[in-house]
């Protein structure tokens, strides 16, 4: 062996020897969760981001949220206010001159639970509530949904734990504080000195491991931007102690690498909230069902196709109905998603109490689709494609986000179904930044745009179906009614639902609203998306919710089944 070769071999041996010192950490006292995204900030006020909500579910609890049964539940409050228990009271709203303005407001009183502490031992008080409201309603803080804070006209403080929220408007959501997030005033007040700079000066960004920022069963102890977050037990947590000493949330964006990490033991569990797509999880289950448990939870992510109602072809409701009759959504659900993504007949999920089960539905019926198209004047068939007698071709375009494998696959299946009844559909996809940031925003899709809405239980479709929410150049493309639906009856029903406090009366209004939606078909409902949770066999107690409050809000229920305690 010549000298350079010997040196090279020696170098390789030394490298291998030094690297053999590496030993992966192994301990059941920690749970390592893999996710595909990293939160932009842990400040609960700034940005609405699913992965942030996921992490904060372990570390930062709110006053009230929606529970597993999709009903509001108190977390830091003792009792939800209602008119019956006297914690909610109506009052006549006065105008600037002190005269009755002809409408009613509502006062809702909350009491913070005893034993509520920040992670540094400071009690959670009404001072935190007042400070959070101050931050939330300031237009320069960067809060995405400012409206929920600005709707509050006053917060009256009774004592350190009891406060009353005053709103000059009463609606069915009167007793849920919604997304009112708590901030620790004693730590965050300095950062808010210049509101415009708050988003960069907040301790959640500059010193995220500060214990007092958190009030959940865990607190963040270490954070590597873009890579991982370590959470340890919060010693001031008074509730049920969580099972694991620490939780590590690791971000691995590439799902193939995420799978490999799970198999290598680098992570224990892939979170359903931001992990593998359903098709990937189904494929993974086929290969590794003996090693892992799988939970599929359908929820509030509503995949649908927005029609552009300004398109003369789609302006005809018979064509819209025919398009829906022509596709076998159940077959799509069964074959592509193993039945795990239930067919949607409207925007309201069957898990929501407001769901109306007797909706008009559109079963797969190509003959009915053909009859409807004939009726609409598309009866002349040339080259397998329908035409009007004047020669107009029944040709439509469908768009979605490019690179989303599932959506692109569904598009192709739909295209094939529609071709069977003589409808030509061409596919043109765009990157998400163009599709959402330009095409959908400016209603620049000529016929159909496929995407999803996220929402909370009993979510009022005011921004997506109200006639004044149609984006136009005149309103600087504001609003999210991209389909361009304008229906006075829909406006009336939305307004009526909003102010109806009686649940049974509201149920009837919801039924009318959903019936109108299903009859008019301003959009083509596809299915409710499911999240796939891939768990090690030893991890028990995890219950997905299906709505925007993630499974981590109940992390103290999670446990290692091999642990006798």
């Amino acid at each position, binding site marked *: 062996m010549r000298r350079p070769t010997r040196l090279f071999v020696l170098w390789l041996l030394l490298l291998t020897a030094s690297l053999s010192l590496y030993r992966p950490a192994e301990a059941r006292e920690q749970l390592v969760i893999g996710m595909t995204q990293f939160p932009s*900030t842990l400040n609960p006020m700034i940005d609405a981001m699913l992965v942030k909500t996921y992490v904060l579910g372990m570390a930062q609890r709110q006053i009230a949220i929606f529970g597993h049964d999709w009903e509001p539940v108190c977390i830091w409050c003792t009792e939800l206010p209602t008119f019956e228990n006297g914690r909610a009271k109506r009052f006549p709203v006065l105008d600037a001159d002190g005269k009755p303005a002809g409408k009613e407001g509502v006062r809702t009183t909350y009491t913070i639970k005893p034993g509520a502490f920040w992670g540094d031992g400071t009690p959670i008080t009404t001072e935190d509530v007042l400070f959070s409201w101050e931050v939330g309603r300031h237009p320069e803080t960067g809060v995405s949904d400012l409206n929920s804070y600005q709707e509050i006209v006053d917060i009256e403080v009774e004592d350190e734990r009891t406060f009353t929220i005053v709103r000059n408007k009463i609606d069915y959501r009167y007793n849920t504080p919604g997304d009112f997030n708590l901030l620790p005033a004693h730590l965050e007040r300095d950062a808010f000195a210049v509101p415009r700079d708050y988003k960069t000066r907040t301790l959640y960004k500059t010193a995220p491991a500060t214990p007092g920022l958190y009030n959940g069963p865990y607190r963040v102890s270490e954070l590597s931007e873009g890579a991982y977050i370590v959470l340890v037990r919060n010693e001031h947590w008074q509730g049920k102690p969580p099972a694991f000493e620490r939780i590590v949330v690791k971000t691995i964006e590439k799902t193939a*690498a995420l799978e490999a990490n799970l198999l290598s033991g680098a992570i224990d569990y892939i979170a359903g909230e931001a992990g593998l797509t359903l098709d990937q999880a189904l494929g993974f289950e086929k290969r590794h069902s003996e090693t892992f448990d799988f939970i599929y939870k359908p929820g509030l992510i509503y995949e649908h196709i927005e029609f552009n109602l300004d398109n003369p072809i789609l302006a005809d409701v018979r064509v819209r109905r025919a398009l829906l009759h022509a596709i076998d959504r159940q077959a799509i659900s069964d074959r592509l998603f193993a039945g795990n993504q239930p067919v949607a007949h409207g925007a309201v999920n069957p898990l929501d109490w407001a769901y109306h089960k007797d909706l008009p539905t559109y079963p797969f019926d190509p003959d009915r689709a053909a009859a409807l198209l004939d009726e609409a004047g598309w009866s002349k068939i040339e080259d397998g494609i329908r035409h009007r007698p004047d020669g107009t071709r029944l040709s439509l375009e469908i768009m979605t986000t490019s690179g989303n494998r599932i959506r692109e696959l569904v598009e192709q299946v739909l295209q094939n179904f529609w071709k069977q009844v003589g409808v030509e559909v061409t596919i043109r996809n765009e990157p998400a*930044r163009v599709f959402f940031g330009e095409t959908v925003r400016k209603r620049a899709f000529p016929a159909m745009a496929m995407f999803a809405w996220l929402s909370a239980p009993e979510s009022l479709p005011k921004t997506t179906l109200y006639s004044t929410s149609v984006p136009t150049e005149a309103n600087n493309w504001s609003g999210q009614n991209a389909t361009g639906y304008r229906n006075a009856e829909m406006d009336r029903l939305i307004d009526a639902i909003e102010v109806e406090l009686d649940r049974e009366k509201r149920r009837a209004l919801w039924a009318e609203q959903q019936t109108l939606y299903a009859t008019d078909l301003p959009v083509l409902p596809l299915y409710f998306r499911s999240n796939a949770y891939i768990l090690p066999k030893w991890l028990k107690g995890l219950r997905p919710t299906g709505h925007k409050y993630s499974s981590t809000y109940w992390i103290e229920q999670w446990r290692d089944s091999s642990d006798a305690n």
Partner: protein
Amino acid sequence: MTAFLIRRLGQALLVLWLMSFVTYGLLVLMPGDPVDLMLAGDPNVTAADVTRLRALHGLDRPFIERYGEWLGNAVQGDFGYSRLFAAPVTDILAPRLLNSLLLMGLAFALAVAIALPASVLAARHPGSLADRAINLFCFAGISVPPFWLALLLILLFAVALGLFPASGMATIGDGGLADRAAHLVLPVLTLAAASVAQYTRHGRAAMVEVLREDYIRTARAKGARERTILWRHGFRNALIPLVTIMALDFGALFSGALITETMFAYLGIGKTIYDAVMGNDFNLALVGLLLATAVTLAANIAADVAYGLIDPRIRLTGRKSA
């Protein structure tokens, strides 16, 4: 040499300024409103929220005004705020750039360490078994997609053998030198693979060419030792075209690093730039792209300096003579 370096640095700064203007313009021209992208999928956001956030992020002002403000701040060291990460751009990019440079530097060094002897070995006996084996390796190295190679390495060394970690920069709670090195092995191998093949191929071709030159024949005729002929006369001259390839490749490593960093959840700059462009994060994308340009320019200047060191006949006056 000093005058040369000052002139090249001046040119580099001018290029960077032009690049900043062009890149900023291109980012503005690219379709997609950042606020709408931020809020996509949330049906509860009102029109007023969109207008307010657009104003808050300065998106309602003309391009030239925004660029002027950005440039004014940049020359004072303030490169702005990243919307995606909710943090100053320098806080995000500085550590990631160092991580990427470490990854790229190690991959580059490994590639050079393997490619140079391999290219000499292959060129010494063209058509031999060793030459054919090296050629086959080069063909494979260039053809194999980094994504596939990364996955293969993860499955083999992390999942099946459990020798190296599958992802990340260090074990959480450890972070010792051996641990950091272990986390670097697979990404470095992935990133280096294509470069090894490319350098070897070009190095072999250059060496074969040089070994046919008259002065090599003359040296042999004068009875010079084969080792001297190979390394002092042949290899030194073959290095000049190879250095150009390497300098260009070092800049290109940025794009290769994107895939490698994503696959190994390695916190580098490649993936950050990609996310910034796709997420319409002006400041982050702009500074990231400028950093990539700066690294490429620096690699080119380094190549020019290396020419002078390899062959003293090349004077660094802006014109090269060989």
